[in-house]
């Protein structure tokens, strides 16, 4: 079998005393869509931030397309082919929606005209093309989530990290977003790792699910297996009971 596109080996991160992520390992095959779920505070975003180069792991190794990438800066990781969204959206508020995406596209298409053309196509794909000239600050939260995705896609990643981009979307909107990712995956072979609480989206998209709880990977496998896993049920129920 071919080498996985992303391989995370025993990575760990602590914040002062708190073990946010402890010794997590998994791998993602190229072309797969994989979900990362877990209760609030499980360490999902921290894991993303290590992959994306925001935090250096305290231990372990991250390999992308056969290269060790831990210790690289976020921009170098983007250039290597990993795009990411932010859970707490970070639009360039004072710039237009289109320019937000153009900036993402400029990495691979240095010519402005070309970048604008590509950005326009991506906005259309995500259904916010008619808002292209509005300042990003004026967008509603769902649209900001879409912009977040559009901008990351504009960098033409091989692996896309999505951090709760469906949160706050209505079910029909969720379905549309799911369809966009399916299309991208089918057309371009885009590999996706998504953090998501919206199980509707997780079940519709993912081929594999990893469950994080208190910084540890407690289950991995096919969606229908994982959701029946007693340990998984317990961690979610325990959360509700608390």
């Amino acid at each position, binding site marked *: 079998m071919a080498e996985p596109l992303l391989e995370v080996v025993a990575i760990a991160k602590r914040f002062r005393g708190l073990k946010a992520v402890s010794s997590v390992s998994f791998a993602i095959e190229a072309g797969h869509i994989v979900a990362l779920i877990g209760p609030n505070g499980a360490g999902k975003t921290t894991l993303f931030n290590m992959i994306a180069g925001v935090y250096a792991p305290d231990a372990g190794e991250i390999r992308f397309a056969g290269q060790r990438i831990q210790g690289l800066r976020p*921009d170098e990781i983007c250039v290597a082919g990993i795009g990411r969204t932010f859970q707490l959206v970070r639009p*360039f508020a*004072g710039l237009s929606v289109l320019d937000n995406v*153009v*900036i993402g596209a400029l990495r691979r298409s240095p010519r402005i005209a070309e970048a604008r053309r590509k950005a326009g196509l991506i906005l259309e794909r995500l259904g916010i093309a008619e808002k292209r000239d*509005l300042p990003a600050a004026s967008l509603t939260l769902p649209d900001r989530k879409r912009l977040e995705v559009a*901008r990351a896609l504009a960098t033409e990643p091989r692996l896309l990290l999505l951090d709760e981009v469906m949160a706050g979307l209505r079910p029909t909107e969720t379905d549309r977003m799911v369809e966009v990712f399916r299309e991208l995956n089918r057309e371009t072979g885009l590999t996706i790792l998504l953090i998501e609480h919206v199980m509707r989206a997780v079940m519709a998209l993912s081929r594999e699910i990893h469950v994080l709880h208190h910084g540890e990977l407690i289950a991995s496998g096919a969606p229908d297996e994982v959701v029946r896993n007693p340990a998984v049920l317990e961690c979610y129920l325990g959360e509700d009971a608390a």
Partner: protein
Amino acid sequence: MFSQINPRARGLLAALALLLLILPWIANNYVLSVAVLILYFAYTGQAWNVMMGFCGQLSLGHSLYVGIGGYSAAALFVHFGIGPWGGALVAVAASMLVGAIIGFLAFRFGIGGVYFALLTIAFAEFTRLGFDHWQWLGASGGFFLPVKQREFNDLLNLRGSPVMFYYVMLALATAALAFCTWLLRTRIGYYWLAIREDQQAAQALGINTFRCKMIAVLISSGMTSLAGVFFAFYYNNLFPEQIFNMGRSIEIILGPIIGGIGTLFGPILGAALLALLADGITELMAQIGIELPGIKQVFYGSCLLLVTMFLPNGVWPALARRLGLVSAPGPDPAGNTVRHPDG
């Protein structure tokens, strides 16, 4: 975007250009000297704006680059007989070097925001102290360029009439405007705006923020030092206490703040408003017979206060909208400037 520059704006711009071109024929020497001052601050404001308005890096020590530029060119002229245009190359290089040192220290070690601003002040102050004791450049007693009455304007050596200086400054300010307009249309221009808006998001899009910020500092410091060269040859004297003064740095940034940070015409409008109004006020006071030292500073302070309270984005964006110079793209509840408020 730029295609949106509407005919009205174009007409106004053409009229302004014409007025500026013929000004020496219709204005007396006093008006011309005010015009030189306006153009000077339009230019330095434009240069400062590259760092702050485009890239979001606040410098409160831009007098440093004016001083280094002025002293470099003046020293080469007085000590080695090298003309200002050759001297300008050295001046620009020297300022860029100092800018690079400041930028490197700050950006490598993650110094941003207020601390970056403080660093720029510190550098300007330390440089002033150094020049205060540098005998070769006259130290605190001042450094002077030889002044001689001439019959002809000597453009090569920047010796001549106020009219010549006016046109030189006009050319510089126009070139700066064109250059900045162009910069905003390039990849680095977009990257600067991204960094200004959100550095971490910019980085996630593959932008090497260190490199982009360094380039902004280099361009801004290099541009500013040309103003210093002009200053030296226009006034023919340089005093560390004056040229490196923090007050000078503040004067540079007032124009863009009042006109509109990050806009292309803001620095120009701001410089004009400040100079004309400040002049008007002092004139008025003189007429009434009141002489108040520091009235100009009080005036600057009031302007700043009023603008930050009522027009936080500066006068230009509001004025441009009012005059219908930009095709407004849509509602903007947050009151943020959309990219290219200049249309």
